[in-house]
């Protein structure tokens, strides 16, 4: 297993280099001049040109890329055009908020989603099943910004139980977590239901019933564990995606996470921040995927990595 993890980590390196090439090229392909955008419309062309030279934007693209890669190898992600701060510091300032929200909403979505999925699957075609799946449908369909604002109206403006956006205390975490989890709950519930239904119809489950096991043991111990692989995959993908920031939720709730950092950087054509943020995101995503793969082996002992 250890060797497997090491090999996967080594394989991640070319992936990440590929990511740098793509991001580097894409952000430069779209129109927009970082120097002009940073200095504003009123700045004189001389000042803008001076900043272009300072940023090395007057150099040919391959030169710029090699310089970027050279600095990256020394662990230097460069400096933000907008704030003049080290990109690593910008990201470090935003990552905790993103991780908090991603972990909280994944935990909530996993707990609620799996519970709903199990209930739904064990009572297939009952009114409970229809209710759960209808709610799940709403969860997938509701636009996040709408749901977020509605929750704020209810819990912040009317009831005054929770703050309307912002960051810092556990109370601030509640509404964005619920908003963000709504979508994942739905997906996890549906995935758990369909996967569990498939397993529940298999012979060994019938055997388990036949030998007189209780419902809890049959469903949770025998069936659910075997139904988990696709569920774990979905949870991993959701969590990995959330680590890149949840732009809509972060915007509606004024949450200072990676999503807003990245989108703000794209809008400002802040090349170093875009590159740094996407790179960190790609690295985290790779790690989460690896963790999911490792988890497979625990969930299903038949899976071996050699």
């Amino acid at each position, binding site marked *: 297993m250890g060797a497997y993890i090491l090999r996967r980590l080594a394989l991640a390196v070319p992936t990440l280099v590929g990511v740098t090439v793509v991001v580097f090229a894409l952000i430069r392909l*779209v*129109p*927009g*001049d970082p120097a*002009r*955008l*940073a*200095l*504003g*419309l*009123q*700045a*004189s*062309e*001389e*000042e803008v040109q*001076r*900043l272009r030279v300072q940023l090395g934007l007057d150099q040919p693209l391959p030169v710029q890329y090699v310089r970027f890669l050279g600095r990256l190898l020394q662990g230097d992600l460069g400096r933000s055009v*907008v*704030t*003049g*701060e080290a990109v690593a510091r*910008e990201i470090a*300032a*935003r990552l905790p*908020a993103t991780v908090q929200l991603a972990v909280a909403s994944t935990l909530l979505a996993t707990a609620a989603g799996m519970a709903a999925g199990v209930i739904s699957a064990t009572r297939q075609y009952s009114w409970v099943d229809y209710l759960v799946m209808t709610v799940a449908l709403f969860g997938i369909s509701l636009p996040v*910004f*709408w749901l977020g*604002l*509605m929750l*704020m*109206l209810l819990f*912040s*403006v*009317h009831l*005054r139980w929770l*703050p*309307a*956006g*912002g*960051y*810092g205390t556990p109370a601030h975490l509640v509404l964005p977590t619920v908003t963000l989890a709504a979508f994942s709950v739905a997906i996890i519930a549906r995935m758990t239901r369909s996967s569990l239904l498939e397993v529940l119809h298999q012979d060994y489950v019938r055997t388990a019933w036949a030998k007189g096991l209780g419902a809890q043991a049959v469903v949770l111990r025998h069936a659910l564990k075997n139904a988990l692989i696709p569920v774990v995959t979905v949870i991993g993908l959701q969590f990995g995606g959330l680590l890149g920031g949840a732009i809509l939720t972060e*915007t*509606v*709730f*004024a949450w*200072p*996470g990676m999503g*807003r*950092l990245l989108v*703000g950087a794209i*809008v*400002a*054509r802040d090349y170093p921040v875009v590159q740094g943020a996407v790179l960190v995101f790609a690295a985290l995503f790779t790690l989460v995927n690896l963790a999911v793969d490792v988890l497979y082996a625990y969930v299903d002992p038949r899976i071996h990595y050699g």
Partner: protein
Amino acid sequence: MRRYGFPGLVVAALLAALVTGADGPVGAQSIPRQLRIAIGIDADRLDPAEQTTTTIANIVDYMFETLVDLHPTKQQIVPRLATRWQVSPDGLTYTFTLRRGVRFHDGTPLNAEAVKFSLERLKDPKVAMALRFLVQPVQSVEAVGEDTVRIRLSKVTPTFLSDLSTTQFAIVSPTAVQRAGDRWRSAPVGGGTGPYLFKEWRRGDSILLERNPNYWGKKPLFDEILFRVVPDAGTRLTQVLAGDVHQAMLPPAPDVRGLRRNPQVKVVEAPSDRVIFVALNTQWGPFKDVRVRQAMNYAVNKKAILASVLFDLGTVSESPCPPMMFGYHKVRDGGWPFSPPRAKELLAQAGYRDGFEVNFFTPTGRYIQDFQFAQAIAGQLRNVGVRANVSTMDWPSYVAMIQTPLERTRIQMLVLGWAWPVLDCDGVLYGQFHSSSHPPRGLGPAFYSNPRVDQILDQQRQEPNVERRKALLREAQEIIWNDAPWIWLWSQKWYVVTTRNLEGVLIHPIEKWTALCEPQEPAVGHHCVNWR
């Protein structure tokens, strides 16, 4: 940074919430310890010289002060850190007497050396000062005594005192700047003389200021001021309604009408110096003919659009320059008249009886209701036979398009807003109508060129006599107005929403607000915020 657009459903729900009796902001009777203000963008930098937006300049203004101030309503230069000044007869030497007994937050005394340091710093290429051209005329700064500073200019600069009142020219503590080093731009600890001092900047979240216990002027009302970064306009409004913040800038424009009637909150609005216009590429096809450009102006009903699309968040333009600027001259009372028959007549004279097709660009969410009013304008143009095809794009691409030189430009007509940090007509007229402002050197997308206008605009920059300068600016405004390189629209308002307890918040024409006491000189009258 501006976000106005908001899905109708949400707005409707918000309004419904207002009507069905949300009990509004908490009616705290006592003065809150912390005043909380929701802003739309995070700071880029907190160094007065390096920040680039009026929103952040606002925050910096709580901590840093300039030598002179611009009175927010009287539009005259008033003392701040300098108590007196003298200008030499040739207009090249300015001598300032500094206020005595003022100390920076770090204890360093404010003296002539500090002023010299602050102004010379602006010329340092390592300092990223976007508006460096403002400091270009400064040839030397000399500390004559402890509290006397002499500034020599290389050329006559009629706007120099106004320039000195902009946030960029704030006086900073030399010791604080040197001690902070690289951290200065993000944490200007101890660096200013203002009523509040820097406490903490949590990126993407908030900026916290604390009362300066040793402030030389009137003591500020609140112990702390917290600026919360809330990018979504709807959320900013929600936070005011929920009592989370006491003031929010730019709530969603479509909600403003309802908010004006809501007794729980106050909408504070005032005209700003940002003129909104449709630039006509005067070197493209039909627009080469001044009659066509005039016809475009006759075809658009500015007042109707302001009332129905902008919720009265604008004032019709009556000159190329907005009213609060030095040199303003009202060319046409009530703005360019609305007369489709006259427009058709002029188009026919110019040989466009059947109109023509034109591409029409607008940003989305940059100016108040921009995409919406562009469509209204296109609709009105269609009535006189001009088929304008509206399209939009993201702001960086938009700016890149404006920067394209004439031979490659795609611009035929486009929406743009223009403001200037100094309230002087020179900023608009020179920046948009002098032929040196053609892209890519400048950002004047009308490619307007008139030798007489060039001559006047150059001349007024050298004219120390106030009245003669006014006359020159007046002539320029008359000529440009009738040449119609733009469809003259309006200057847009700046607005904030506050809880009803907060009184006396003032909007400056340069898209700023103030929740402080100012100006500091009793001679021109105090204006302070209050809590009821």
